[in-house]
């Protein structure tokens, strides 16, 4: 059990991919190839490409499909970064849950005029400008820190599922990184609880918002009460004695009470 848990996917890849490469592509200069980098490039390309595809596609169904791919590739990137639990969660929650939800939405609203709503070319241009400037800003920021520019040390991390689970119930079992201001001792019990309550609220709220609107049929007693705001006693007697006479009683009371 421990061995299986300790087996990290990226380390497995480190072991397997070079073997495959050497056997399947002997002609290629395989010696310096860093397979981790190659896989990264693959997933990164997929993620970025499909993300751009999402932007570019006009058909909402295709957008949903591209998004699935993009998020899946992102999950791969998580694996490559050593966050295998998070990658799993990404696949399960996003690809398996959120996107299914989205696809449901697409299907529920996918009537002919709305499947493909094309933006105007000016919108496209504007979006391109905004995206380009934002990208430039983000990249400039990313490149402006030396520490981030250095290549990774390649330290294979310990499996993260257990430390994550323990952290979420308030116990930290992982090794704190050097220089961490909190000393790595901070658990996430409270956020965990908040998020769980939040999810419950969301569940209820979503159910309420998306519920089918049904016309409310008022009860007889409500009709009488709203018709006669003046004499509660009369309302009570009228309502109690004979529902059939309420209309007449209400009318007379209304006439009598009208100012």
């Amino acid at each position, binding site marked *: 059990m421990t061995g299986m848990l300790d087996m990290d996917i990226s380390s497995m890849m480190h072991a397997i991919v070079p073997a495959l490469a050497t056997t399947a592509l002997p002609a290629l200069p395989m010696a310096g190839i860093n397979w981790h980098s190659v896989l990264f490039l693959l997933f990164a390309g997929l993620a970025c490409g499909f993300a751009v595809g999402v932007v570019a596609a006009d058909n909402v169904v295709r957008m949903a499909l591209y998004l699935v791919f993009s998020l899946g590739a992102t999950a791969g990137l998580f694996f490559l970064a050593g966050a295998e639990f998070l990658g799993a969660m990404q696949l399960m929650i996003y690809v398996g849950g959120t996107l299914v939800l989205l696809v449901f939405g697409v299907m529920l609203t996918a009537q002919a005029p709305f499947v493909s709503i094309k933006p105007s070319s000016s*919108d496209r241009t*504007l*979006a391109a400008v*905004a*995206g380009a*400037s*934002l990208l430039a*800003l983000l990249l*400039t*920021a*990313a490149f*402006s*820190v030396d520490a981030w520019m250095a290549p990774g040390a390649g330290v294979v991390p310990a499996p993260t599922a257990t430390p994550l689970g323990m952290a979420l119930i308030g116990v930290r079992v992982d090794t704190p990184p050097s220089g961490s201001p909190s000393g790595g001792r901070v658990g996430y019990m409270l956020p965990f609880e908040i998020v769980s309550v939040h999810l419950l609220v969301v569940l209820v709220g979503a159910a309420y918002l998306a519920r089918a609107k049904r016309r409310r049929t008022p009860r007889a007693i409500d009709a009488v009460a709203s018709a006669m705001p003046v004499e509660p006693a009369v309302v009570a007697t009228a309502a109690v004695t004979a529902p059939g006479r309420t209309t007449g009683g209400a009318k007379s009371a209304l006439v009598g009470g009208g100012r």
Partner: protein
Amino acid sequence: MDLESLLPTLLGLAWLLPLASFAVILFAGPRLGNHGKGAAGVATAAIVGSFVLSLFAFVSWVAQHPVRAVAHEDHGGAHAAADPSHGSGDHATTSHATAAGHEAGHDTGHGDAVHAGSPVHYSGDWYTLYEGGRLKLSIGWYIDALTVLMFVMITFIATCIHVYASGYMHDELHDITDHEVHLADGSHLHRPGRFHRFFQALSLFCFSMLGIVIAGNLAMVFIFWELVGICSWFLIGFYYERKNASNAANKAFIVNRIGDFGMLIGLMALWGALGTLHFADSTGPDGHARPGLFSLVRPPVAGHAQWVPDGMVKFAAEEKVGAVLRSHADDPRAGVEQVEAKVEDWRDEGYGRWLLLVAGLGIFCGCIGKSAQFPLFVWLPDAMEGPTPVSALVHSATMVAAGVYLVGRFYPVLTPDALLVIAYVGAITLFIAATIALVANDIKRVLAYSTVSQLGYMMLALGVGGWLAGLFHLVTHAFFKSLLFLCSGSVIHACHTNDMRKMGGLAKVMPWTSGTMLVGCLAIIGAGVPFLDIGLSGYYSKDSILAQALLFARENPSHSILFYAVAGGAMLTAFYMFRLWFMTFAGHPRDHHVHDHAHESPPVMVYPLVALSILAVVAGWTLPGGLGIANMIEQARPAGTGGTELGGLLFSAFTVPAEHASHAHDIHVTASLTAFATAATGVLLAALMYVWGVIPPATVAAAVKPLSTFLANRWYFDEIYRFLFVLPVLGISQLVSGTDKGIIDRFIEGLAWGAKQVAGFDAWLDRTLIDGLVNGTASATYSVGLELKKLQTGQLRQYVMFIALGTVAIFVLAGLLFRSSFAG
């Protein structure tokens, strides 16, 4: 039930019945019968009840204290008042009944003194308003023969006038168009009738008048004095929409206040020096006797001779009292004893005489106002603006007589000098009023001036020592003057005018009225047969006045003008009264329009005339055995006032003769003959001028034009008063109001103007600067908001765009500004 508790009960009830009537009419007036007609019934029933009670009291009195002829045998005595009960052999009953009214109070302590001359009287208090220290204010009674007589007289006349008025005021039962009131639009005033209100005021007046008569102390007199004043004001101003009437009411009220001011001074002098306002002796709560005013001024120990009371002596000799007390500072009790011992010396030195004079004259001031004496008589003729029954009851028979009554009641306290002042005031009044009456053409004004003149007679009589004569004339005059007024009311009712020049020849149309009025005229001029000594009521009273005046003139030749005034006044009276009668009833009609519409008044008005005319004839008679008004009044003669008095404080020494001396044969005959001669002359002159036309009145008037103009303008009294008092007051008022308007108002207006300027500047500042600031901020915010509103497009995608571009912009700007790495 003995008289002592019976009389206060009877007279108290008689007094309060009109008050009850007043209250009933006040609260239920318009609802009494048709248009308030029942009010007359209520008021008349009340006054009839009072009359019956008074009559009962009168009969009880006469039964208990038989009225006998005045004894003349003790002429030379110092106190010659006849003791009316002296024949029956027992003491005159002087009782000091307490508030409970049942405690027999025979005070044997000074029985001798009582026997010496204090008249029969009953006194006590019903209700004490306040008692503290020496001050005691109470509602009490002082009942003697005069009180009982006045009650009978007032209630009888009031009864007649109530009956008469219920006919006379008949118009008031319905809505009235008052032709004497011109509204701004030229029409006449139309108003609802005020029948009940008339009787309401009349009842209140009767209550007040009886209150004066029954009052046991001066404070109570003063209260009811003012009450009759206000009733008079109500009644004169009954037609208050008429400017004349409201002015006359105000004039009467204000002029009376002037007199009452003097009365207040007198009250203060009395109370400040003597500490009591009660007429009669009473018993204090501690059982000690509290001497009343009469006993203080005429103490029994001094044989009821007038002296200055101890209190006034000490009050006047204040400095000496202080010196004595200071010298005995170590032993205050001895000092007080020393003061008491020295009072006699100080009295002999004359201390307090002036104070007593001032007290007497002060009280007389009130009487001047109320009894319309010179110089305050100007209100009474104007008071004729009231309805005629009011003139008859209030302004001739009773209220104006209240002043004479008070002088009579207060007589023991008046010093000889005060009496002489009173006599002169009366003489001046009677002469002035009689001369004005000669030329007056308004029938009621003639009677009004006649009233003033007759009141002058009474005052003069009192002043020259004729206490009995004055009060006797008061009673007889009340009967015939009310008769005369009611007759004139009957004439006015028939002719709808007051102007005698439009009348004439009415005797045939109004036989009853003319007959009864003739009786009244004969009574007022004192018609009688001199040697048989038989005549109408006025004959007796007027003769006694003349006799007393003659006696006084004989004793004091320097004051003989008083007698001439009386004699001349008698002639003038005869002239103007018969001028009135002749102009009204005799001869040919002057205005046929008036004459043709004239008619005899209804029975309800004639019956009172007949009743009063009978009284006008017989009121002065003395029945065999002595029963008569004069002898009854004599029963009430204050102790010690029948004798000769010496005066000389204000005037050179003079003597006030004893009244019984005027009954001496020679005096009496002279007076009678004088009276007869003057009256006959007057009547003859009137007949010559107005019946036979031998001397045309126009010729006489033309011959003495300045004089007749002077008289027709009433001696210019109103003008003189206007010039002397009204105009200065108006001038001062204008000066004050000018000061107020010109200086004070200007100053305040200036302040206001300044404040307004400052406020205007503030407002400007507020409007431009502060409001501008606020409004500018608001409008700037508003316009910015309007502009910003355009940014909120509701386009979700644009928002995202803004966010993205905004983020980029912020970072770029931050990077450029801080020159640091973007993610540092």
